[in-house]
């Protein structure tokens, strides 16, 4: 069906397009405006903004830890009632069904689960397969696994390490590689309770820095489009800005992505020894073009923190609200689930402000990405409210006025007047994520791209506008109209097409037999295990 989206304000930074015009698509792909054909369907987009479907590069939407968080927080007990409105997950879009539905309603069409344990890849992909409408992707976690740490300890060659990384990405069907508090989960099992960038993992004798640099080199050498995705050490700690700074310095000119930088934007000034270092971190990012970051914005209210940084989550158990948590030592990282209520007190307000400082003080919207680290900073359903804070300085000022002055005094936020433009929003949520992840077929309205299109009816209230799209098309199918899902379909998981060295399977088979007493078949699976037609789509490595 040839479709014309007619007369909207088209914003497509990837093609430098910004102005009133039409978008055409057919058979699931954007096409040039045909000269001699009439459309089968016309969507009147007058008074609307038209952009490509949005891409979320870091949102915990599926896998073992996410599911454990769901299990931990039913909060209904014998109350004979559905989940009450104010419980931790009432706004989270918490089932797989709700996740796909609520993302689509906001015009998001691709979402990356950034923390897949390779050993639980089948579980993760089964969950993702049950998320309707949107496409998904995963980042495979490495950096606390015995196989890699042993290779680094034993001075394995870069080629051998690249073979292992490539095998892991291919067998787990991942789009990239993430390292989470490199070495800390392994150290925690040896009863180490804090772990910094130059600390050494007991038993292996390798530092966190060495692990990050090794993986960064392997990811780059393999041509994996997305830079190594780094969850730094010391998350959430006063003074963590120093850790983030040394990690960024260690990039040494090669691409490196730092996840949820807000959670490291804390200094040690003031009488509470907890201050904003958002401006300093933004300055470092601005000066280092090889660095990209996502923010992990905090919003006030109840949520649950879900992280494979098991050491950090163990230390945070005392802050759990409600008072329950799960800590899991996995075969490599494991994870921790700690429910948390962000209150607009000194500490919460400061965290909220740090995130906004990063958004507003990092100059290049191609290098700062829009996330709440769902659900860690806030559920992804808070996105519309965050867009309003970024695009409307008066709305921001109103919010600031309600928060403790003592906290705001420790930040630069009240003095910042920048407002994001529509072009910058489109860069940060469409064009830049596609570029960062190596997804050449999306994030743009260029002919040949998948017909993932979001149409928003202009309103004064930006949050209302971006919270409920007028139309959303996924692969050309109309899936949302006036904020309601009108059609359910199954998306795909995007995976990287990495080469696998022929002897690697034999090495892994020997490893699992010797160390676990099990065949490698227990840890791998064919695509058919998902039981969906074409559950995966391939993404090419850089040549």
């Amino acid at each position, binding site marked *: 069906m040839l479709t014309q989206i007619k007369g909207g304000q088209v914003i497509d930074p990837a093609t430098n397009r910004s102005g009133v015009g039409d978008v055409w698509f057919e058979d699931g792909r954007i096409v040039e405006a045909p000269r001699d054909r009439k459309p089968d369907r016309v969507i009147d987009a007058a008074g609307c903004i038209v952009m490509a479907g949005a891409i979320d590069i870091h949102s915990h939407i*599926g896998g*073992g830890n*996410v*599911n*454990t968080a*769901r*299990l*931990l927080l*039913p909060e*209904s*007990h*014998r*109350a*004979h*009632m*559905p*989940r009450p409105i104010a419980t931790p*997950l009432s706004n989270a879009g*918490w*089932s*797989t*069904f*709700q996740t796909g539905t609520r993302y689509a309603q906001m015009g998001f069409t691709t979402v990356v689960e950034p923390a897949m344990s390779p*050993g*639980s890849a*089948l*579980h993760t992909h*089964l*969950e993702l397969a*049950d998320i309707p409408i949107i496409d998904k992707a995963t980042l495979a976690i490495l950096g606390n696994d*015995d196989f890699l740490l042993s290779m680094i300890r034993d001075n394995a060659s870069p080629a051998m390490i690249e073979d292992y990384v490539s095998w892991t990405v291919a067998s787990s069907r991942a789009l990239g590689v993430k390292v989470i508090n490199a070495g800390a989960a392994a150290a*925690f*099992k*040896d*009863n180490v309770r804090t772990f910094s960038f130059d600390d050494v993992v*007991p*038993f292996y004798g390798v530092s966190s820095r060495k692990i990050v640099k090794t993986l960064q080199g392997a990811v780059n050498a393999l041509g994996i489009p997305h830079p190594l995705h780094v969850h730094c050490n010391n998350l959430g700690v006063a003074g963590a800005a120093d850790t983030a700074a040394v990690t960024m310095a260690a990039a040494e000119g090669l691409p490196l992505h730092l996840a949820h930088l807000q959670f490291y934007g804390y200094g040690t000034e003031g009488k509470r020894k907890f201050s904003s270092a958002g401006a300093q971190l933004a300055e470092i990012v601005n000066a280092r073009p090889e660095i990209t970051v996502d923010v992990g914005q905090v919003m006030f209210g109840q949520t649950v923190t879900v992280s494979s940084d098991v050491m950090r989550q*163990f230390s945070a158990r005392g802050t*759990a609200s409600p008072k*329950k*948590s*799960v*800590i*899991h*030592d*996995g*075969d490599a990282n*494991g994870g921790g*689930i700690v429910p948390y209520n962000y209150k607009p007190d000194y500490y919460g307000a400061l965290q909220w402000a740090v995130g906004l400082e990063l958004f507003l003080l990092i100059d290049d919207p191609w290098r700062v990405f829009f996330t709440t680290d769902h659900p860690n900073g806030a559920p992804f359903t808070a996105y519309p409210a965050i867009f309003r804070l970024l695009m409307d300085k008066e709305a921001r000022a109103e919010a600031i006025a309600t928060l403790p002055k003592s906290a705001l005094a420790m930040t630069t936020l009240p003095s910042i007047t920048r407002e994001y433009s529509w072009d910058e929003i489109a860069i940060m949520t469409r064009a830049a994520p596609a570029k960062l992840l190596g997804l050449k077929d999306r994030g743009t309205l260029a002919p040949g791209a998948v017909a993932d299109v979001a149409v928003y009816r202009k309103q004064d209230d930006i949050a209302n506008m971006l919270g409920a799209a007028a139309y959303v098309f996924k692969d050309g199918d109309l899936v949302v109209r006036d904020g309601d899902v009108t059609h359910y379909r199954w998306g795909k998981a995007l995976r990287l097409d990495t080469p696998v060295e022929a002897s690697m399977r034999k090495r892994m088979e020997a490893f699992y037999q010797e*160390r*676990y*007493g*099990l065949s490698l*078949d*227990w*840890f791998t*699976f064919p695509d*058919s*295990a998902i*039981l969906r037609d074409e559950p995966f789509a391939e993404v090419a490595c850089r040549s």
Partner: protein
Amino acid sequence: MAVAWIGNREVTGEQAARRAAELLVASSCPVFSLNGDVHAWRAAIMLAERVGAAYDQLDGGVLARELALFTGKGAITVAPGEMRRRADCIVIVGELPAVSRGWMKELVASPPDLSGGGKRDVFRVGTGLGSGKEIAAGDGAAQTLAALRAQLSGRVSAVPVKNIEAFRKALEKAAYTAFVYSGAGLDELGIEMLQGVVADINKTKRAAMVLLPASDDAWGGALVSTWMTGFAPRTGFGRGMPEYDPWRFDVARMIADGEADLHLVMSAGKQALALPRKMNAIAIAHTDKPVTHAAVTIRIGAAGVDHEAVRYSSRTGTLVLVEAAKPSSHLSAMSAIRLIAEALPC
């Protein structure tokens, strides 16, 4: 070979599915008792949503007991593979599922290779495994755990704990202690007490629990239920949205109290199904004859035998693919459920 029955009359699978769909449409309070692989659970929960049913694990009491710790309190756990490689002190707590005995014997016999390796100390609470020093106090595993927790914390307990000093020394020496348990051998408070022991040890040392579920398929079903609805089994769709209530949607209770008017039972296991005489029932079962008292029976194969399956493995602590050992033309539970779903009016 018969594939389905309406009452005792042989019919095609499609005819049985149509009759099952009619019964589901006519029911005002259908309930599902489920036992199957991951794909069977996925299909069954989708069907439950369409017809407004409540669902539970078949004989779901033990699963509910195992889930209670995770829904009500939380836990400190370790993956089974990591336990094998790292734990230099292992405590087997209570009775374990019979299927895990081989793996436990292998575990006891294999030395840990991480964190310096070395030999493993083995203890047991109760008689779950023959080997290992027995830790005992009073009558039963829960009481033993209570006394053990008190004494490890420096408090006095009225009942002495057998081998407490040996265990204290082993704990002191151990780099990592793992406690293996199952809902088959501990009640809710016993499991919670065990978590208390583990939490106390973690103040200064490392320790964690490993759950060997009484039924791996039940635990796999719980994972599926949780991602599809946000809730564990004992969830109902009576009001169109998933609602979780472990008392209200206890299917056995709903039947006993006369709340349910149709019982769909899905079981790929070998055990014979015992259905009550007075209630309409749909049986999706691994059987070669109609299930007694079932209005409709659809024959299915065994997961991992007649057809490929995805199942929870307590050996790996996650989902695994199981190839068909003896592939056959029998319907899978998922296929049977989908036949019924396709027969429902749109």
